[in-house]
């Protein structure tokens, strides 16, 4: 909504987090966002609210208080079964108009990225995608949202001075959750959509689970990735073995995917997934910019390459010079000794 004057803006209070239910459980990104929201709310002397929407959502509210929420709005209705983006967006717009939050945060998951742009357009407010930093002006309540643009080559800081609420999405594992405190309590507001004209919604015909989707890579803590230097599909078998030893996922450069050694689901980079793992082991990946933009924010980068001068080897925390196909079996047997 347009809020050009301080008086209009003052009507908007509290920091909201849109919770995500994943197979009936709260997605970790929700707890992380509550952690971030806590800091913002404290700076503004306001509250953290969490909005929990879905069929059976009532069951999930407990942990939200433990992680730092003050108030939870629950919208539990059988019509909200499966992911009905249009309906969820309508419900959110209604809640935003009724309660007027100052800031709305949502996880940059497939759901969040489908839902929130719809809400932002309908509520006429700005939305900043994939923020890596959030801070708030304690006086004006203006949210300073930092995000990478142009493939991570530039960090842009964005503000929405004349609109409220201010909306942002944040990728999983960018913010830190607080230590849960099981004794924390809060207030629950139940909202019903009984009176809403929900129209004829999307019909969800079938849902099936799979670990092999292109998108679960972005959730992995450890990634073992291979490039052209893996020489062929056999090399990727080695990587899979290594990955399963360390409880990680397998990533790949586009060169390896294009060669048909591994499915596209594993591609990291500009036209693949962006990942934020704790540990990224790049095996025979030279470090072209299109690959780097997908993984450069990983915490620790290990590079293994026979060429000591590649970009990847220069930027790695640990660089191992040698033949990967010989080194990986040795790493696997070293890990077996642990």
């Amino acid at each position, binding site marked *: 909504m347009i809020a050009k004057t301080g008086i209009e803006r003052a009507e908007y209070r509290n920091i909201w987090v849109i919770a995500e239910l994943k197979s009936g459980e709260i997605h970790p990104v929700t707890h992380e966002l509550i952690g971030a929201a806590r800091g913002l709310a404290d700076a503004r002397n306001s509250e953290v609210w969490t909005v929990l929407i879905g069929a059976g959502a009532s069951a999930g509210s407990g942990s939200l208080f433990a992680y730092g929420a003050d108030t939870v709005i629950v919208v539990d209705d059988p019509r909200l079964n*499966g*992911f009905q*983006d*249009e309906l969820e*967006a309508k419900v959110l717009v209604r809640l935003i108009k009724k309660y007027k939050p100052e800031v709305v945060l949502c996880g940059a*998951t*497939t759901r969040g*990225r*489908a839902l929130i*742009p*719809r809400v*932002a*357009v*309908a509520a006429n*407010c*700005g*939305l900043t*995608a994939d923020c890596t930093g959030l801070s708030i002006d304690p006086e004006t309540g203006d949210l*300073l949202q930092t995000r990478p*643009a142009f*493939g991570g*080559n*530039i*960090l*842009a*800081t964005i*503000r*929405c001075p004349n*609109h409220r609420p201010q909306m942002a999405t944040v990728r999983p594992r960018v913010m830190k959750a607080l230590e849960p405190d099981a004794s924390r309590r809060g207030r629950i507001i139940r909202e019903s959509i009984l009176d809403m004209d929900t129209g004829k919604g*999307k019909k*969800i*015909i079938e*849902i*099936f689970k*799979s670990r092999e*989707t*292109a*998108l679960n890579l972005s*959730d992995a803590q*450890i990634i073992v990735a291979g490039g052209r230097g893996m020489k062929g599909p056999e090399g990727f078998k080695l990587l899979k073995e290594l990955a399963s030893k360390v409880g990680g996922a397998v990533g790949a450069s586009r060169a390896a995917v294009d060669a048909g050694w591994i499915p596209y*689901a594993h591609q990291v980079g*500009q*036209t693949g997934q962006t990942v934020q793992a704790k540990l990224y082991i790049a095996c025979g990946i030279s470090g072209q*910019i*299109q690959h780097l933009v997908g993984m450069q924010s990983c915490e620790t980068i290990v590079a293994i390459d026979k060429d000591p001068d590649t970009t990847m080897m*220069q*930027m*790695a*925390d*640990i*660089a*191992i010079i*040698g033949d990967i196909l*010989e*080194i990986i079996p*040795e*790493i696997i*047997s*070293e890990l077996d000794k*642990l």
Partner: protein
Amino acid sequence: MKLVVCIKQVPASNDAKIDPETKRIIREGQKAIMNPFDTYALEEGVRLKEKYGGEVIALSMGLPKAEAVLREAISAGADRGILLSDRAFGGSDTWATSYALAKAIEKIGDVDLVICGKQAIDGDTAQVGPGIASHLDWMQATYVMAVDGIEADTVIVKRMHEDSYDVCELRLPAVLTVVKDINTPRVPTLKGRLAAQKSEIPVWKPEDIGADPDKLGLNGSPTRVVKTQPPEPRHIDTLRIEGAPRECARALVRELKRRGLV
């Protein structure tokens, strides 16, 4: 079927270099390309047309030179292209961009399906597709990896999530955003290239689409970029390990253990 594919022209960053002085991307002489994700949207549109009949209209908003991506789209199977280009569109964020594209789609009229790429590689927001759906109040499906079938007024699609897929039915008209898995784009034919050369690409201005000037460009954009800066360089003291494979492996595992990573 009337299909609209939204195509953005983006900088080709495969030769993106950072100016060591200013720490900015050097854009001079940089090539501009069709957003790679939009090539899949286009291919899907053309395949649906081939299967169900109708026409594919490529729609872009951008500088006059964005005409090039529309010609490219025609050479790869689109029937015609429309460019939204005017000063007033400049500086649009995703809210204003999706507004302008939605107004153009209304102006085109009787559109059954709009297909967008998953995201654009410059802004990386993935907001414009759902934004268009919201402006039009149409149904949407994002991260679509297969279009299973179209009936009189419904479309069945397979959506990708982090750890699952779902199959759902939407009412038409609708907006889809598609991922790379959906198809393999074709190579333009000679015939296509000739058609692209000959094609007239109309340029639409705000008044042509009946857009409210307050909702376009900077005026219509709730977000303001207040600062840009290069990211903090990684503070790296690269630990270099060299030697026989077994020695390297040992040193690596020891180091990872010391850092609490394995």
